[in-house]
């Protein structure tokens, strides 16, 4: 999996592409740590380029969300592909991590919060 980062209004957007699975742990954690190190108030994980997300990746998102809460950094997910969105829905992830269909909506939400 590849990750590109960019700053938007003080926060960080991580653009993920490829398969988000157990092997992505190191890459994903490094990108998240970097955002935290910059005291980023919110983190948007864009899943538009993720074709598949496995159970280990789901756990990684959950544990990242817990850590984000402890660091007062808001985590949101963006634009999951239908298969990934279905998987997130079945695991009730939207109850825990907000999922948005576009970046503008996500930014409005996090800035408002």
């Amino acid at each position, binding site marked *: 999996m590849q990750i590109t980062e960019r700053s938007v209004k003080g926060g960080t957007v991580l653009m993920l592409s490829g398969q988000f699975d*157990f092997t992505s*742990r190191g890459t994903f954690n490094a990108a998240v740590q970097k955002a935290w190190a910059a005291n980023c108030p919110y983190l948007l994980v864009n899943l538009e380029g993720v*074709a*598949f997300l*496995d*159970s*280990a990746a*789901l*756990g*990684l*998102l*959950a*544990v*990242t969300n*817990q850590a984000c809460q402890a660091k007062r950094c808001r985590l949101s997910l963006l634009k999951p592909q239908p*298969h990934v969105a279905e998987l997130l*829905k*079945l*695991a*009730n*992830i939207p*109850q*825990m991590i907000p999922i948005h269909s576009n970046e503008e909506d996500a930014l409005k939400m996090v800035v408002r919060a």
Partner: protein
Amino acid sequence: MAIMNHPAPDRAHASVSLPAGIEDSSAATILVVDDEPVSCTALSLKLERRGYRVLQAGDGREGVTVARREYPDVIISDWMMPEMDGLAFCEAVKADEALRPTYFILLTAHDQPEQIVEGFNHGADDFVSKAASTPEVIARVRAGLRARAMMRQLERTHQDLADSHELLVQKQEELEVDLQSAARFVRSLLPKEERPAPGVRLAWKYLPSLTLGGDLFGVVPWGDDCLGVYILDASGHGASAALRVASLVTFLRADALPQQIGSRDPGEILAALNRLFPLSEDGEYFTIWIGSLHLPTRELRFSAAGHSGSVLVRKDGHMDHLFQPALPVGFRSGTSYLTRSVTLQAGDRVILASDGLYDVPSINGERWGLARFMRAVLDSRDRPLAESINDAIVQARCWQEHPRFADDAALVGLEFE
């Protein structure tokens, strides 16, 4: 035979530093073989003056005997000798496995390229002209000793690698024995009865992707009139996942439920497991589906924590997804889980699968998916339960065009008579 014409001993020969790890060659043993005693002695003296241990032999045959007894580091041999000449001697040395690493220098008056080639073809490592100066002879001996020392280091490295490989293989075998033993334990937790209760038929397939898997299921009596049914999937696979599932299922035994959980209600059991197994630091968690079947009334009460591969296939062709979205076990403390209930009729089937079965990708990356899986078990509802289970496995394999599942896969079917 020609006698070497030696210049005065050269005590100021260039010192050549050896590569790191190569031992000093000054204590090396050199075998000088020449049928001309004067030449043999003269060369030996030059070498001895430089601190080498020098052995002598009068021809190739004697040279072989001395070499097999003393294992010299370098042999300097005349070419033309009676009995066994230098070429035949060289060949004999190189044919002997124990002597093969010995650096062999042919001492010769021959300097035609075709003769040099002939010498190399017989195994010689270097040549030195009988007319060569003492510094040149010494330099060639030192070069030979360096080559010999490097070869020894290579042999040691090779031996170290061979030893390490042997140790690794041994450890791997020990680990495999442990894993097999653990796998037998995990398999011992799987259902054994084809009829776990009167009027209930059971069929299943358990296909861990490694020796040990992170999927597990069970059909266990919870009292005289109740059957507990569960399927769980620990995130990841291998030993860590298997240990976690083995740990969790101990809480689902009939004798453990009252003390550890305090309820047989599936939703309450999940809420208790959510407290007992929080998300690990590495994000490890469980998805699980739990059902409690009251045998007299055939009421199936169930709840799921992120586990969606559960379907009720009615005999009349209707289907019900036995699922509602809920967080996996450990994702958030204080999560409550809803218990739903359905009443089963004769001929109905409850099919439970792990995502390793229905999430298989085709070669172009498209997933088989829950919908196709559910369609497969619905379409085969008129066939015997075991065949229906096998058919779903076959369809998943056909979809991914590979017999082996990349993730742990489990499929359980219960049929009610």
